[in-house]
């Protein structure tokens, strides 16, 4: 910049201006996309959320009456499902982390020539629809399926007990479906980790556990944070797992929003619930990122 100032004033600022303009031009498609597919629908949703049914109660007809109490009503009527969504999502996130971290660690550090093959195995489930995979679990864990049969035969599961249609199978489904989202970011941050740092830790007389706690884990935190977010956020809005693997007693907030939109055709309640869900997730995520101190890394 200081060197550029030697030239004429026109020449000093034009490259700067142009690069700014170029930056906006390059950003334009993305911004336009966000505007069209995020901001507008969001405004539409906001507008819908304060409507009330038309005086004739005709299906799908609503009038704008700025009834903000919709939010309170919708929340109070569905507290249980909200609470359940976050509990299930949290449980699934913790279990997925417990499975994914050792998995990612061994792929990154211990797999040798098998590395790429193992990575493909992690991604392989994505080659089939996640609906089909969840349905497969429904069959495997079904009341007349192989797992229940064996567990009953061994006397582990009492007669009359089932695995599907319980909270257990919903959390299992969530964990299974989002496991790759947890594994890949952790793998990525472990793989980038400079192995010499771990060696240095050993040279400084840290044992394995201390090295992990003081070196490996802190350096892989960006991956852990990204992985937990990529699991927790979609899991708390998910409804497929609860629908296929749960009973009405295991339904999550996503099921309610789905049924309000597509069955009762009660758009205002559905919109209010969607907004509440989005806001709650946003707040939780902000707190989480602040707490984990990795805001610049995510």
């Amino acid at each position, binding site marked *: 910049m200081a060197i550029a100032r030697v030239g004429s004033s026109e020449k000093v600022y034009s490259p700067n201006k142009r690069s700014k303009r170029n930056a906006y031009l390059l950003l334009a498609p993305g911004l336009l996309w966000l505007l069209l597919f995020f901001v507008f629908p969001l405004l539409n949703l906001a507008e819908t959320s304060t409507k009330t049914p038309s005086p004739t109660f005709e299906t799908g007809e609503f009038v704008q009456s700025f009834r903000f109490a919709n939010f309170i009503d919708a929340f109070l009527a569905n507290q249980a499902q909200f609470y359940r969504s976050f509990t299930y999502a949290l449980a699934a996130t913790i279990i997925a982390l417990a499975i994914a971290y050792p998995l990612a660690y061994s792929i990154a550090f211990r797999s040798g020539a098998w590395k790429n093959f193992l990575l493909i195995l992690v991604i392989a489930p994505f080659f089939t629809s996640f609906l089909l995979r969840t349905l497969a679990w*429904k069959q495997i864990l079904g009341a*007349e399926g192989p797992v229940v049969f064996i567990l009953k035969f061994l006397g582990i599961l009492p007669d009359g007990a089932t695995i599907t*249609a319980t909270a257990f199978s919903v959390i299992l489904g969530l964990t299974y479906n989002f496991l790759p989202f947890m594994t890949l970011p952790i793998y990525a941050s472990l793989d980038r980790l400079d192995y010499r740092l771990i060696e240095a830790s050993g040279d400084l007389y840290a044992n394995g556990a201390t090295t992990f706690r003081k070196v490996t884990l802190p350096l892989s935190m960006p991956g852990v944070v990204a992985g937990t977010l990529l699991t927790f956020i979609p899991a708390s809005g998910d409804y497929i797992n609860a629908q296929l693997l749960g*009973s009405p*007693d295991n339904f999550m907030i996503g099921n309610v929003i789905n049924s309000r939109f597509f*069955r009762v055709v*009660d758009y205002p309640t559905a919109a209010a619930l969607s907004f509440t869900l989005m806001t709650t997730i946003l707040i939780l995520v902000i707190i989480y990122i602040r707490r984990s101190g990795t805001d610049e890394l995510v």
Partner: protein
Amino acid sequence: MSNDFREMPKDPKTRSLINAQISRRGLLAAAGGVGAVALLASCGSDSEIAAGSFPEDEGGTVRWANWTAYMDQKRVDGERTYPSLNKFIEQTGIDVDYLVKYNDNDEFYAQVQEKLKAGDDIGYDIVTPTDWMAARWIRLGYARELDSANIPNKGNILDTLSDISFDPGRNYSMTWQSGFAGFGWNKDLVDEDILSLDQLFSEKYKGRVMVLSEMRDTIGIILQYQGVDISKQFSEDQFMNAIDFLKQKISDGYIRQVKGNDYLEDMANGDALAVIGWSGDMFSENLGGQNYGFAIPESGGTLWSDNMLIASTSSNKSNSEKLINHYYDPAIAAEVAAWVNYICPVKGAQEEMEKIDPTLAESPFIFPDAETLSKVQVFRGLSAEEEFNYSDAFQEAIGA
């Protein structure tokens, strides 16, 4: 179904206005007001209800959205074929896309609603909603008026179905099949006939029972169990009692899931031992190798009909009408009924059935006798407000 509004005018504009009034005030209250409303309506000029802008008839393949296990089937070289449909295709040269897209009335309606409103093609020419939903389609102008000239078999419809409250004279809809909602069970796993709700919700089947997400069937059966006549006016308190009963059975863990027509999958894989389900489903699944039983509850089951309507967005009207006509040929209707085992809406089909299978011609589930009909009721028409509130309560009860 038993409501008589025979004096209703033919003009669709007038009728939809009247129907809107009916839905608003409740069927009974409206009966007296019909004359006055008709007078008012006939004075009005073109209103938005006179949806004159239907698509041009372009012909082509008829796309028909129907329910699961609702058409006679035969495996040919490992592929599923529909013999009665193939006859139509051979005779007329009109192609038909038969699409099993109905799992639940609400679900289907919600999927196409926005397009109907906007007048965009919904992807189907013929749809097959149940009575109460058919009433909504017709009321909102989402069904095209049928041209009788293309349906010479129209007169074959059973007298009991020819003049119904939501479509007097059958100008917009023709019955596809009728049926009962009652108890179904897997005979391989259940060794008794289930005849009452107490049996259905007994310890033996706890957690292995499923009920229909069709409110009128599930709640209709519970209401009758509680001694309420569902064909007549009942109070909101009575309805909510039935909702509480359902909620209790769900939270106590008796009911595993609340489902649409896909409850058949859960019966097939054994997750469900017993269900509140639909009559014909049990019999047609038995043709496929299952061993299911069906009974109408002692306290009363429900009777419903599904109707063929041509969607307002269809650009394939006359071919669709020809297809509807085809299924009102008694021989064809008997062929369908012999497979689906639902109540056949076509006169003369019973005689044709004698030729196919004399025992089926005696089946009270296909050609019901007075005794069978005395055990079932049709859920009364709900006003739009009731429909919104009741459906809201029902959805909340089933956890969503």
